[in-house]
């Protein structure tokens, strides 16, 4: 009896698996593929894992891609430098402390309110009123006042010259503008009543945790965008998103602001193979790296030789090819050479285990007969590496590096933790090595380098090196310098110091990937990596 039942169950299982196998095979040749994915009605439906959230651009909870569509800044950061946006032109005073902006005329907020000097002042004052939340952006500590000169002229007065002023004004937040009518209690820090910017898209509907719809702004000063409707649909990453893309219920995905893709590379390739989708990759946007704590005296990583040896022992090619499936490229320096001021000639340290062993040997870390771990004065060469437990790729990289280091006689203990607790370790200095990434194109090098001196960022990473004082002096100088050539040479010095000291061990360069309907053209990227210029897209 039991045998008979088992037979029936086994048979049913077989039939079902065959059914699945057969039909899986026939997906690609589906006849009603035509309507899937392709968008003829100038409408994109984007799958995102998070709701757009509070769109207040003077706080940090909202989705940056969505905020980038609705709000605009005074100036824009492009590949060719700073370009006008809401400000048509500007002048910088000789002492570098006063910036005068001439605003674009005839621009209106989505609620019909005029965009003028008064609105600029109100917005900047609202940001400055909540200064603590904006401590990361150095400009917020330099602004003394924002004054209205006439209806379309404002001046920004700084306490001291600060060269990245225009760069920081171009970021997606916080220095962007919303209708003063949306303010509560005359400000924005306690929440706002609406989300009216001046940007190419208007937020027309938002159902929390379901979707948000943006429609082309018919009165946009740059001309109404051709892509008429953009919907952000909240979908869990993985299978659900992939199935919805296959069916065409959503037709667009891109790398989110944590560098995570909603679907894996295999799924992306499958969609492209179906003939309905295209895959677009950006230039390198940031650098994924391992940060070494040079200031932890009792740790072997406080020695330059140990850090260099680790650098040599990482096989970046294999990581890029096998662990990351070619989505990211090998990085040999902290910033890739397309980052401003980062095209500096630095000593290349490739994958070379023999060289790594030699360096350790020279530094006195010797391997006794039969031992697996090197020692020096009786101390073992053992270090800890922390990785984000939510990132499968970081875990795989950590395991891979662990095995490489074992070969050169370094014992690497790998520990997975929540990103917040890793951030906490970075602040308190309680680590040997940890995974991190640079801030991204619009923020590199100035924001990442400013982080070298900030306790919550890389102070512990940089403070243990011999030339630390010199490094900090140069960092202070560089943001205040008004001369381009001086800046170039200062940045070159800064990058050379941290490179020679090997405190930031680069691994790969991250990119943004987009999966979009095949007939969408004009897909490009902004310098600010988290937003896409949808207004430039169109269908064929």
């Amino acid at each position, binding site marked *: 009896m039991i045998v008979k039942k088992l037979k029936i169950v086994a048979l049913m299982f077989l039939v079902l698996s065959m059914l699945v196998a057969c039909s899986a095979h026939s997906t690609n040749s589906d006849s009603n593929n035509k309507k899937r994915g392709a968008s003829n009605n100038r409408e994109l439906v984007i799958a995102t894992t998070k709701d757009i*959230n509070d769109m207040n651009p003077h*706080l940090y909870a909202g989705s940056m891609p969505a905020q980038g569509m609705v709000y605009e800044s005074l100036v824009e950061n492009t590949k060719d430098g700073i370009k006008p946006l809401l400000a048509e032109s500007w002048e910088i005073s000789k002492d570098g402390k006063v910036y005068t902006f001439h605003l674009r005329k005839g621009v209106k907020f989505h609620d019909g309110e005029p965009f003028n000097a008064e609105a600029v002042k109100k917005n900047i004052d609202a940001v400055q009123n909540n200064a603590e939340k904006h401590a990361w952006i150095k400009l917020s500590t330099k602004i003394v006042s924002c004054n209205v000169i006439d209806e379309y002229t404002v001046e920004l007065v700084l306490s001291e010259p600060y060269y990245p002023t225009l760069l920081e004004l171009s970021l997606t937040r916080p220095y962007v503008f919303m209708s003063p009518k949306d303010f509560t209690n005359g400000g924005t820090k306690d929440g706002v009543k609406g989300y009216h910017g001046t940007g190419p898209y208007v937020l027309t509907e938002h159902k929390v*945790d379901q979707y948000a719809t943006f429609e082309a702004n018919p009165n946009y000063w740059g001309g109404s965008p051709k892509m008429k409707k953009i919907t952000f649909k909240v979908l869990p990453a993985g299978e*659900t998103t992939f199935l919805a893309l296959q069916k065409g219920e959503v037709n667009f995905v891109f790398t989110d602001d944590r560098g995570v893709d909603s679907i894996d590379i295999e799924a992306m390739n499958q969609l492209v193979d179906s003939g309905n989708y295209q895959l677009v990759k950006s230039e390198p946007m940031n650098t994924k790296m391992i940060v070494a704590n040079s200031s932890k005296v009792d740790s072997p990583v406080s020695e330059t030789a140990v850090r260099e040896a680790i650098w040599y022992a990482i096989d970046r090619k294999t990581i890029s090819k096998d662990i990351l499936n070619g989505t990211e490229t090998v990085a040999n320096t902290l910033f890739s050479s397309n980052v401003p001021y980062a095209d500096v000639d630095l000593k290349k340290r490739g994958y070379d285990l023999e060289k790594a062993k030699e360096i350790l040997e020279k530094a006195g870390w010797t391997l006794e007969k039969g031992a697996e771990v090197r020692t020096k004065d009786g101390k073992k060469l053992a270090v800890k590496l922390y990785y984000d437990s939510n990132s499968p790729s970081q875990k795989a990289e950590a395991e891979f590096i662990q095995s490489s280091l074992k070969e050169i006689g370094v014992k690497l203990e790998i520990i997975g933790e929540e990103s917040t607790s890793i951030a906490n370790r970075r602040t308190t200095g309680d680590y040997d090595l940890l995974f991190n990434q640079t801030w991204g194109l619009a923020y590199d090098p100035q924001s990442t380098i400013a982080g070298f001196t*900030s306790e919550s960022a890389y102070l512990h990473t940089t403070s243990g090196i011999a030339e630390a004082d010199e490094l900090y002096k140069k960092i202070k100088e560089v943001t205040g310098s008004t001369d381009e050539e001086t800046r170039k040479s200062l940045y070159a010095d800064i990058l050379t110091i941290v490179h020679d000291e090997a405190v930031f061990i680069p691994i790969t360069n991250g990119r943004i990937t987009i999966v979009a309907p095949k007939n969408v053209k004009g897909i490009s990227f902004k310098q600010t990596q988290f937003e896409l210029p949808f207004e430039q897209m169109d269908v064929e």
Partner: protein
Amino acid sequence: MGSYMMKRILVSIPLLLIISFLTFVFMNLSPQDPAEVVLHAQGVPKITDELMTQTKAELGLDKPFIVRYFDWLVACLQLDFGNSYVTGQPVWSLIGPAFLNTLKLTVVSSVVIIILSILLGVVCALREGTIIDQSVRGFSFFLATMPPYWLASLMIWYFAVKLDLLPTNGMDSYKSYILPVAVIAINYAGIYFRVVRSSVLNHLNEDYVLYARACGVPERKITMHILRNSLQVAVSIFCMAIPIILGSTVVIENVFAWPGLGSLSVRSILSRDFPIIQAYVLILAAAFVLFNTLSDIINAAMNPKLRKGL
């Protein structure tokens, strides 16, 4: 009966208090400073000491643990669960709509599960040992053991993508209910119809059935009697099933992007939005206590013998 109900309800109050306290304790066991969690949750790029102090004062986190618990408890009794760490909106405004959506899914699923279980259970019991009984049991066993997320993906792929009949996700029309309800029903009806079946089988062999048959009572009438008696067991099990389904929709909601409590709780856990997690645990606990009490009361109403126990 009235006093029994009163007693039963009074017993559940300390239970809820204990649960609420434990939830609060566990939340506070997290090694991280709550103020830091809040700021990380709000996406603040750089956290300074002043900002931490300011946030602590704003959220009342500088008060001692017990004081915070009582503040929270009193507020909860007035249905004020605080504000979300991430968005700053009242928790109730987020959990309320999500709870309704989950409830809709749960109610529809429960109705389908109950109808299916009773139907299959009774049919299988009355046809015990036949090919119908065996194949229903075999097939349901097979389906019920499939992991729900896998079954869900398979069904979405087949019915939504391949056949293009239903939406893959969301909650847009009645069509959106079909797949998630089917997955939940397959998983639970597969278990619960066995309960009905064995209960009916037990009663089939009772003396009163034999007696009724001997007296020539029509078979249909006998079946009705058996049903009434055997459903008593089923009622309490179904009552317990509803909160279980309510809690276990997490997986289903995530696969189908259903905007309910499950999706909300997972997101809140990932972003450490403690006020929402606390409210979620409390609501689920309350649902368990409520339905447990309800099942006891219904059983007591159907069977007076049980009322003396308490």
